[in-house]
């Protein structure tokens, strides 16, 4: 049923139909509307979950760990400083292979303090062992919330998953949403059936310590599970598509790439603007295309190679920066194409930090650079205001 609603509300309703048993969250802008809406759903008796009103994000994730190990389906949401505060707990949840699902309402990291959107928060948790997907719009954020449980709880993965959606740009924006119906979700997502739980009748130890004889094998298994998640994610998307009519396909989405010479790559909500830019340039006869990277971890190397081999140039937009190097997605795209036949020229563009708008003009500039630059590889802050540098 299509309804116009705020992105946060769409996510709250998706959480509701996924039937979590335990929600633990700490409010932080711009995630607040999600947890407020979930609180109301519980208060109204529309969601039969326990909401633990924790004193920090560190405890939010810790509560999820305890609840998940006991056999409960769990949910939390955060952003920015809250995600950073969770840092060590994220690794712990993944290492214990607990299928916790979390929404990250992407926001910049301090200092300077900034409450607006970029991807520095979740990109900085790249190596935590969590699956990370980035939604382009609120329907995708809602759909991926339900899919996330099925992906995370699959015995082949059994790892936590974060659904990233751009703070404000998505969380606070009203869009038409196809609200997922409970009976259909119930047929898609079975109740959580963990293999190992904390049980007095069958006592097991969770979170043991492993010396050098065993540690590598635990890490390898965690790594393998993330790699295997690629298959699970594709299967789950197909199954979701059969029931709900929206199959997101693999871990990337290609847009008008078939005969494209110049392709721009991005994560998240800016992909909509990118697609519009591609349409405009196509109308002018330019052979351009776009790639939306849906999953940042696992990183879809084979799909990237297959989509980009043979193009003239690739431009990667990063709303993050690995300070002292370049945008993180740019690095990964380059690494994916290393050694492939006819490697394209590659350009990195860091833009849209701390809520600075990414517009068609940003992408026009990117394509212009791809089409005209003589350099084989280059990275730049593409929306920098040089006149401000002396001031700050």
């Amino acid at each position: 049923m299509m309804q116009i609603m705020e992105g946060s509300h769409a996510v709250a309703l998706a959480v509701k139909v996924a039937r979590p048993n335990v929600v633990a969250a700490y409010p932080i802008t711009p995630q607040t509307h999600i947890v407020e809406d979930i609180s109301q759903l519980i208060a109204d008796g529309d969601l039969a979950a326990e909401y633990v009103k924790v004193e920090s994000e560190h405890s939010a994730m810790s509560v999820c760990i305890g609840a998940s190990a006991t056999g409960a389906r769990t949910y939390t949401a955060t952003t920015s400083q809250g995600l950073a505060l969770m840092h060590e707990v994220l690794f712990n949840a993944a290492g214990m292979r607990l299928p916790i699902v979390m929404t990250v309402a992407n926001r910049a990291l301090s200092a300077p303090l900034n409450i607006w959107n970029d991807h520095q928060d979740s990109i900085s948790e790249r190596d935590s062992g969590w699956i990370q997907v980035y939604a382009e719009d609120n329907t995708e954020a809602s759909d991926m919330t339900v899919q996330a449980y099925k992906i995370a709880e699959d015995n082949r993965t059994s790892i936590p998953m974060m659904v990233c959606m751009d703070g404000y740009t998505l969380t606070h924006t009203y869009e038409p949403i196809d609200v997922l119906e409970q009976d259909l979700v119930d047929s898609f997502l079975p109740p959580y059936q963990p293999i190992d739980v904390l049980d007095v009748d069958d006592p097991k130890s969770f979170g043991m310590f492993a010396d050098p004889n065993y540690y590598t094998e635990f890490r390898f298994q965690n790594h393998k599970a993330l790699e295997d998640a690629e298959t699970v994610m594709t299967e789950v998307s197909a199954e979701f598509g059969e029931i709900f009519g929206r199959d997101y396909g693999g871990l990337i989405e290609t847009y008008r790439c078939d005969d494209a010479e110049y392709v721009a790559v991005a994560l998240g909500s800016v992909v909509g603007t990118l697609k519009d830019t591609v349409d405009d340039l196509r109308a002018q006869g330019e052979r351009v295309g776009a790639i939306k990277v849906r999953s940042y971890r696992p990183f879809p190397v084979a799909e990237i190679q297959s989509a980009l081999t043979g193009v003239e140039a690739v431009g990667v937009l990063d709303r993050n920066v690995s300070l002292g190097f370049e945008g993180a997605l740019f690095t990964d795209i380059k690494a994916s194409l290393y050694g492939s036949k006819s490697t394209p020229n590659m350009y990195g563009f860091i833009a849209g930090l701390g809520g600075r708008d990414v517009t068609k003009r940003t992408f026009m500039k990117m394509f212009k650079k791809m089409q005209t630059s003589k350099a084989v590889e280059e990275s730049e802050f593409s929306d920098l205001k040089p006149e401000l540098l002396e001031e700050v």
Partner: protein
Amino acid sequence: MENRGETRPLDLFSSGHRACAGCGPALTIQAILRATGAKVFVVSATGCMEVVSSQYPQSAWNVPWIHSLFENSAAVASGIEVALKVLGRSDDGKVVVIAGDGGTVDIGMQAISGMFERGHDICYICYDNEAYMNTGNQRSGSTPYDASTTTSPAGAKSFGNDRPKKDMPAIAAAHGIPYVATTSVGYPKDLTTKVQKGISVDGPAYLQIHAPCNIGWGFDSAKTIEIARLAVETGLWAMYEIVDGKLTNVMKVSKSKPVEEYLKQQRRFAHLFKMPGGEAQIKIIQDKASANVDRLRVIAEEESR
């Protein structure tokens, strides 16, 4: 070994763990689990007892057990308690946290405060060995005055730890939780009673169990219980309950022993008997102990009236 038909139940914290000979905390955990029985969910904080009991692929725990991180045990326990409730399994058993003083009075304080304030039905037990022993005897907020540790060493310009021990039971009680108690591994009967009260109360309970560490404190491994009892007999460790906010059941120290008897047996206080000015420091410690003894006597007498 031949089973001699003893009635003692199966050790839920089994022997074969890697704790040091004479370890007070290991005895404490064994006593705790004998008091609780098998129907408990145990959450351990990172620390000595976690490390000695859970080296993969061997576990000393014959109860469902989880260790997550250093400072988050109270939050992990909150998650278990809530999950049991929502899954209709609350009758399966009580959730018990077992953490050291570092994980409790210092780095874990925020999560504990949250757990108390939210009113979870959890019994939080701190085994207090008065320093960060797992990492090699560094000072914690629970280290007593003048103890020499690796980060509060005695030296020409230092008598060791220059701050008094943090009063965590008072902090716990300030949350208005129904049950707070202190006890000692030197008094297993008292320990058992208090653990059983702690797990039977409805809501959060906090227990702090004094548990000497022979390695960190520097005493003969055969004397763990003797040292634990001396701490009580000198008045340096007080045993009491705070039930619904009221201090009660204080253990009166009828004939208190001088603190020297406790201090002189431990390497961590050895400097006080050698350094110039050490005598005055011992006097400060004695005054503290005497004040404790007097305070406990007054409360006990008031109660018996």
